[in-house]
């Protein structure tokens, strides 16, 4: 194995640049290095102005999402040697506005996530000294969807999100479903009102790439299809029993 590899990294400084363009860097190719290590090497030794997000460096915080050779990846979980001999193209996550270099503006995701009301909603609160019990089966019902680390790789992979500004996106819908399926939650109808609005979930055409790129096996595509089925049942119920069905 060669001991160097070339990275083509997107650079964009809004103060000087009209649009993003790639810069080339040659970094050491160490067997155990991930793409994030290469980026930190560039920042430490080659070009201190390179900007990118990262934090835990172990695949749990969701900060370091970027496009590596056109595929959304967590750079802390993507081995450099898998791309030997290179070059490796590192670009900011697709479908988000680029703030600088590899840093994107994620506020649209945060707005849409909040619309899903990703918290336990109770119609009737329990007294503070009473616990919510949950069997293993009840937890199993939503556990997979709770593994989401909000890394937004699914948004970078979803063509509908890239094309339709009103689409809520995979993670937001998967997290809505996570709470809908939680036995402690009573807020399913609240979420439905917001998400079943035209573009909320119905823009999804089950491309399925969100599930393919998810580093936590959340399977957001499945969550969305299940949500469509739920929304359809609710629509039928509302048709047959209007008003009094609450």
């Amino acid at each position, binding site marked *: 194995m060669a001991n160097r590899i070339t990275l083509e990294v997107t650079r*964009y400084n*809004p*103060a000087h640049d009209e*649009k*993003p363009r790639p810069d080339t860097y040659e970094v050491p190719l160490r067997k155990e290095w991930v793409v994030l290590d290469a980026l930190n090497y560039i920042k430490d030794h080659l070009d201190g102005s390179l900007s990118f997000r990262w934090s835990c460096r172990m695949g749990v915080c969701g900060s370091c999402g970027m496009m590596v050779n*056109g*595929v959304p990846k967590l750079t802390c979980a993507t081995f450099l040697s898998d791309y030997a001999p290179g070059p490796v193209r590192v670009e900011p996550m*697709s*479908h988000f*506005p*680029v*703030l*600088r270099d590899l840093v994107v*503006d994620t506020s649209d995701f945060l707005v849409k996530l909040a619309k899903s009301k990703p918290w336990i909603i109770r119609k009737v609160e329990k007294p503070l000294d009473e616990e919510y019990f949950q069997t293993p*089966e009840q937890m*199993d*019902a939503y556990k997979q969807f709770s593994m989401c680390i909000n890394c937004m790789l699914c948004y970078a992979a979803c*063509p509908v999100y*890239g*094309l339709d500004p009103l689409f809520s996106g995979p993670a937001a819908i998967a997290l809505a479903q996570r709470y809908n399926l939680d036995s402690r939650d009573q807020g399913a109808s609240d979420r439905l009102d917001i998400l079943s609005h035209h573009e909320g979930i119905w823009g999804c*055409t*089950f*491309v*399925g*790439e969100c599930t*393919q790129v998810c580093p936590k096996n959340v*399977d957001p*595509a*499945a969550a969305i*299809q*299940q949500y*469509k*089925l739920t929304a359809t049942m609710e629509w039928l119920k509302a048709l047959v029993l209007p008003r009094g069905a609450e």
Partner: protein
Amino acid sequence: MNNPTEYLPRSYHTRVSTYWWLARWAYVKFILREASSVFVAWIVVVTLLQIRALTRGPADYAELQNSLRSPLLLTLNAVSLAFVIFHAVTWFNLAPKAMVIRLRGKRLSSLAIAAPNYVAWVVISAAIAWILLRG
């Protein structure tokens, strides 16, 4: 990003290319799957033409049979067959994702839901073939 200021400069919005679906094989497969719906509609048209010909009499029906033997229509229908089968396979493989069925506490796997669909497909197809061929 609305008003760029000294401290919040203009962000860059990359336009999605018209050819976004060519960038990855997964996207190409997706578009092919969606395109299968056009061939589904074509088969409906063929079926309607057959019904109309049956209504008009044996001569009309024989004429339609002849057109179906032309190289153009044979090719079109062969391609339609490929797409319709592609639709069926992708449909049976993906539909289970929407259904969460629990048996004795454990969730049924996608295969457990898809398999009966495939069996039904074979049985129904055989039944239709038998009805058509026995006359």
